[in-house]
């Protein structure tokens, strides 16, 4: 009869210092509620749980930043410089995750991508690099303009010709930038479907919008690079 009890004790996480049980609300706490020592990251930690947030997409940026600052004061390696080697290691690990989590969650696009990864809808970094069919024609035209500018640069084209090509490309870039803003609005419009109804079909829609977004973003980036050099 004793056996199961022992097993439960083993399974329940405890503070490495004072052995206080860390379960329920304290399971993902940064510090032991009993002795205040910094704790290792539990394997199930996500960027959301690190901030004590539910897996939802609608985030208040100012509040996230306030929490980021507060946790930085508590967790940063500078605050553990004279602590034991183990605590220094934990501080480094937790601060790295704090920074990674803040960087990811504060940006709506990165936040969606991260959530989709967590929910198994897509693998991290997996992006379809196909042009969305409705954009094919415009993308084709853009690429043509890009190529013309490159060719003109290579052959040391005349100032006026270059200027004209640049001007035309600049216009196209602006058009695509507007599309990008529209796609971003489309993305945020899907947030409530997931946040409020937990609708998994919404995740698939988000994934599609994300592909479209990253395609156009790359396009704009390439054009910008070409225009600035």
């Amino acid at each position, binding site marked *: 009869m004793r056996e199961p009890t022992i097993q439960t004790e083993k399974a329940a996480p405890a503070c490495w210092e004072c052995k206080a049980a860390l379960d329920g609300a304290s399971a993902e706490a940064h510090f032991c509620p009993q002795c205040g020592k910094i704790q290792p990251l539990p394997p199930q930690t996500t960027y959301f749980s690190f901030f004590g947030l539910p897996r939802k997409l609608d985030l208040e940026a100012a509040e996230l930043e306030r929490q980021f*600052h507060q946790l*930085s*004061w508590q967790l*940063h*390696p*500078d*605050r553990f*410089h*004279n602590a034991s080697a183990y605590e220094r290691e934990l501080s*480094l690990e937790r*601060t*790295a*995750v704090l*920074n*990674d989590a*803040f*960087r990811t969650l504060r940006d709506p696009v990165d936040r969606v991508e991260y959530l989709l990864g967590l929910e198994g809808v897509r693998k991290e*970094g997996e992006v379809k690099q196909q042009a969305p069919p409705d954009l094919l024609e415009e993308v084709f035209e853009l690429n043509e303009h890009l190529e013309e500018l490159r060719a003109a640069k290579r052959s040391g084209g005349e100032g006026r010709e270059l200027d004209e090509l640049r001007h035309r490309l600049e216009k196209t870039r602006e058009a695509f930038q507007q599309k990008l803003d529209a796609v971003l609005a489309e993305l945020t419009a899907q947030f409530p479907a997931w946040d409020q109804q937990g609708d998994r079909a919404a995740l698939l829609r988000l994934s599609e919008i994300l592909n479209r977004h990253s395609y156009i973003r790359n396009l704009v980036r390439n054009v910008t690079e070409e225009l600035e050099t």
Partner: protein
Amino acid sequence: MGRIVGIDLGTTYSLVAYTEPQTGQPRCLPDEEGRTLLPSVVSVDPDGTIVVGWPARDRLLKQSERTVYSVKRLMGKGRGDVEEELKLFPFRIAPDSESVIKIRLGEKVFTPPEISAFILRELKRRAEKFFGEETTRAVITVPAYFNDAQRQATKDAGRIAGLEVERLVNEPTAASLAYGLDKHQRALIAVYDLGGGTFDISLLKLEEGLFKVQSTNGDTHLGGDDIDNLLAEKARAEIRQQFKRDLAEAPDLYQSLRQSVIAAKHELSEKTSATIRFAVPGQGEYRREVARAEFESWIAPLIERTLAPCKMALKDAGVKPEQIDEVVLVGGSTRIPLVRRRVEELFGRKPHAELNPDEVVALGAALQARILEGGLKDMLLLDVTPLSLGIETMGGAVAKIIPRNATIPASASEMFTTYADKQTGVEIHVVQGERELVKDCRSLARFTLKVPPQPAGLPRIEVKFLIDANGILSVTARDLRTGEERSVEVKPSYGLTDEEVEGMILESIEWAEADFAAVQLVAARNEAEAVRRATAKALGEEQAQGLAPDERQQIERARTALEEALKTDDYKLIRQRLEELNQATHHLAELLMDTAVQTALKGKRTDEVNL
């Protein structure tokens, strides 16, 4: 644990500073002559003696082939990186300099970290003289735009010099700490740092003592040195025309010319014209008046090069120039009026230049040192990594895993598997930079991840890349099937291996012994001085009447002997005479009831006695 000092290891000058724990005020430590600056110049005598600082700088003119300056520009570089630059240096590069440059100085060969270590050792010695005890812990500053190899090389230099490098701090960020901007204000700060060899721009958000870097950019190959080289080249061309003599073939003379143009450059920050004067041996004097306007037209292209990084930093931080609340100038080159005008135009406000631009970085390093000691609990610095970290993917493309301007520490995990059955290794190539192709980025390291032989695609190895608070990368790997940690042996593309650094530490122990003697001397002197004073005081006390005449004579003799010993630099002799005086005053000590004096006479350490 001991105190931590802050060190600015600069291209042209280096400094050491510390923060007074009681007042929380940082200050730069002076040398015996009251100078806080130490020229970052190292010279090697024919007998192997190393000369550092001012005397080494004087040798630039007479023994230029034995003397090295601006070595910071070579840190973390390979020969291919600096081919152009090396043409202007008088010293020679030894063969086998592909991954670490090896500099020939007279009969010896040194790497840049070893040369930097000589400078650090000199600063360490200065601190030890000042404090009268060993100093082994330091915060060292680096340009914000330094890459991983350059940071690692700086850390290696510290280790070789016998310093525990507690933290590398970015120079502009350190400067912002030192600027004493009201900690409780909320402000967006731009730090424009144009030093001897590097340019950095950093934008910081200050909020309730939290200094958070928003973005950083720069050019690790742009600074006052470039202005000096440009002026020297102009003068050399004119001299060649006027005197039919090319100074490129006479390194000593060329160095001397370089000093002359530097003097003129400095003068042009104060006056509207200056004259370059240079004696061409046996052929008369080259005199060239330079008006400030002309000087400005020459250097304008160099100064313009600082503006693009500024704009990039603004763009990355998502702010417009007019949103910047404070602009801070750092680095000796910001004394140039044209630089100030350009910065003012860009940000639309007058930059702060109240603090000595040469000292402000060292002062900031000392503040960070105090933070690490556990003081200054109301300040915290959150810095960023200046360059994106990526790994090579198919076709020589780069997959970015940590973006530039990510707050550090930062990490990223990547999953790796195999393409072929029974494949036992996966090659991983880590790079730093913003470009899309590996060939356009800086190679940091390559390593082979060992994988158990299994069917293709089955192994799952998680590799974790961690950039620590120093901006330095480390890599660990874990087999997700077994949960086993896998060791990763990373061979840096540029820089020294751990074994090489260990070897250099061993070699440097002879220098450490000389340092040890210096510390002992200061400690013995302080102690002897205190005991000597205490004895004189005790002899004047009423209780001293109880001494027998020969006892008193013995004390006087021992005291004179100690005074003689104090005139030497022999700490062992001082200790011996001190001990003899202690013996002689034994009875006197017993006669005295004043416990403070008694303690001193029994030879307790001086810092335990309040005299």
